[in-house]
């Protein structure tokens, strides 16, 4: 698949050929990565996760309850994308309302992992990652609230990046957890990811949680030779399985060889990140999803009065995982429990952010696993709590609002990719991308695993 960088140099005619070719490949694919083939704008085609508003598209968050909704406005990230020589092509499958780690909760059915169709691509941006990995998308946009870009990128062997909270406007991203959501790039390599990140970032007055910063592009200043002090969190690595631990060790060795300095650190048990996340995210989600009632848009159930309208529409329209999180969210906000759960979690969030900051006093970036194993088999995780725990490495990053990038480092014996993530200080994307570029060079994943021609 042509890279984003290369595609941006193509002429209009060449691009329309590329789009036609992509469209035909995507339509033939049985991965179920695409749930729509709409087009908007002109330029290099970028696959868009089904929760980012593109004007005129049916943007459904892979949910039954939004069937019939047509977006009448455009997300700022899309507006920005279009200003950088790119167009929106196709909607990517995802977990319903971005709640999940496998894309199995989608109204449109699961997406398959291109490396092994019996396995999940990860979630919630499973469609985006699978399409890029399968060569049926040049690059894609996903969203990351608790790892939903980084984890599927790792499971599919591609690069996925979550910006610092506030870097990319959330205006037009169907909200899951307002203080955690960010739109980010999923791409074939680090440079492509940087290009796409540069294209979508920027302060937005329409988003009150958008950070103000001077715009400076990163992709054209990538320093693959940057030498960093990289912290590894020993107690984290210990909890991963053998595939991940081995890949981790090998990566550390290569990073040392490349001239980086490794420091060893420990952080608090990830169980606290998991707990904090599932309290705060569900609370925000419960209220963010309260607007889905079939009154103004979407799918309405039959009802004799408004009470029935609300209950029937939402009971029929939401999948089980979404219902579970809404119930949980309302529990932690409800009278009598608010202080013990919600407020407690908010306080712990300070501890989590402080813990990262402490590490960053001695290191430029942190190297960490993304998931405790390679992609699991479809239908293999039945227990929601087990699912939640698998997010252990990615959640803390969202709670602290930090930027992070996941890149493939190895494949296990069955050929399944293993990805690791780099985490940087807030607003330190330059260093993050430099470290990633340098790591990518040191690992030479594509050369090692012969992935270039697909």
């Amino acid at each position, binding site marked *: 698949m042509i890279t984003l960088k290369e595609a941006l140099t193509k002429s209009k005619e060449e691009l329309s050929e590329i789009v036609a070719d992509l469209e035909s490949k995507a339509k033939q694919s049985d991965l179920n990565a695409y749930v729509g083939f709409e087009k908007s704008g002109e330029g290099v085609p970028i696959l868009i996760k089904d929760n980012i508003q593109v004007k005129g598209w049916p943007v459904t968050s892979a949910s039954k309850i939004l069937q019939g909704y047509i977006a009448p406005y455009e997300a700022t990230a899309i507006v920005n994308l279009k200003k950088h020589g790119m167009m929106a092509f196709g909607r990517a499958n995802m977990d319903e309302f971005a709640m999940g780690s496998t894309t199995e909760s989608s109204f449109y059915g699961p997406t398959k992992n291109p490396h092994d169709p019996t396995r999940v691509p990860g979630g919630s941006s499973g469609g985006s990652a699978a399409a890029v990995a399968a060569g049926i998308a040049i690059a894609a946009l996903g969203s990351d609230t608790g790892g939903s870009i980084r984890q599927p990128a790792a499971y599919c062997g591609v690069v996925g990046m979550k910006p610092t909270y506030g870097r990319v406007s959330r205006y037009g991203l169907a909200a899951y957890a307002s203080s955690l959501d960010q739109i980010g790039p999923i791409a074939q390599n680090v440079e492509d990811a940087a290009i796409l990140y540069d294209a979508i970032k920027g302060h937005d007055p329409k988003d009150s*949680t958008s950070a103000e910063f001077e715009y400076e592009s990163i992709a054209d200043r990538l320093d693959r030779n940057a030498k960093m002090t990289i912290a590894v969190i020993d107690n984290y690595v210990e909890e991963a399985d053998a595939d991940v631990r081995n890949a981790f060790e090998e990566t550390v060795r290569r990073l040392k060889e490349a001239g980086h300095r490794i420091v060893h650190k420990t952080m608090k048990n990830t169980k606290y990140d998991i*707990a904090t996340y599932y309290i705060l995210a569900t609370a925000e989600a419960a209220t963010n999803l309260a607007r889905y009632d079939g009154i*103004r848009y979407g799918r309405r159930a039959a*009802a004799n009065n408004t009470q*029935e*309208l609300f209950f029937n529409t939402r009971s029929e329209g939401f999948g089980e995982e979404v219902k579970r999180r809404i*119930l949980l969210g309302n529990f932690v906000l409800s009278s009598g*429990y608010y202080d013990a759960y919600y407020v407690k979690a908010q306080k712990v969030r300070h501890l989590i952010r402080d813990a990262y900051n402490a590490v960053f006093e001695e290191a430029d970036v942190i190297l960490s696993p993304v998931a405790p194993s390679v992609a699991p088999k479809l239908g293999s995780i039945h*227990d929601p*709590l087990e699912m939640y725990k698998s997010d252990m490495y990615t959640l803390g990053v969202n709670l602290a609002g930090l930027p992070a990038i996941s890149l493939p480092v190895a494949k296990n014996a069955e050929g399944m990719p293993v990805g690791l993530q780099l985490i940087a200080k807030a607003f330190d994307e330059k260093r993050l991308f430099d470290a990633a570029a340098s790591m990518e060079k040191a690992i030479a994943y594509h050369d090692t695993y012969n992935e270039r021609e697909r």
Partner: protein
Amino acid sequence: MQIDSELLTKLETLSHLRVADDKKEEIMRQLTDILGYVENLNELDTEGLDPFFSMLEGGTPMREDVTHKEENVAREILAHAPMAEEDFFIVPAIIE
């Protein structure tokens, strides 16, 4: 924290949705497990920490009081609304 059927019903009401009868037992069990897990936060000392957490520093940006109409938005939403008449959203009677 035990989620029993009374609490589940209360949560369903707050959430304005119902869990299918044949799924209720399972949901109660799952929610109980999850809550039991998240209660691990009680192991941490959070005395004196700010209950208010802000991702970004500074105040909320403010807008000048200048009108900006987006008439196409309403038109398109009404055109695709589940039930609209004369540009009203129609809902069945509200029981007071």
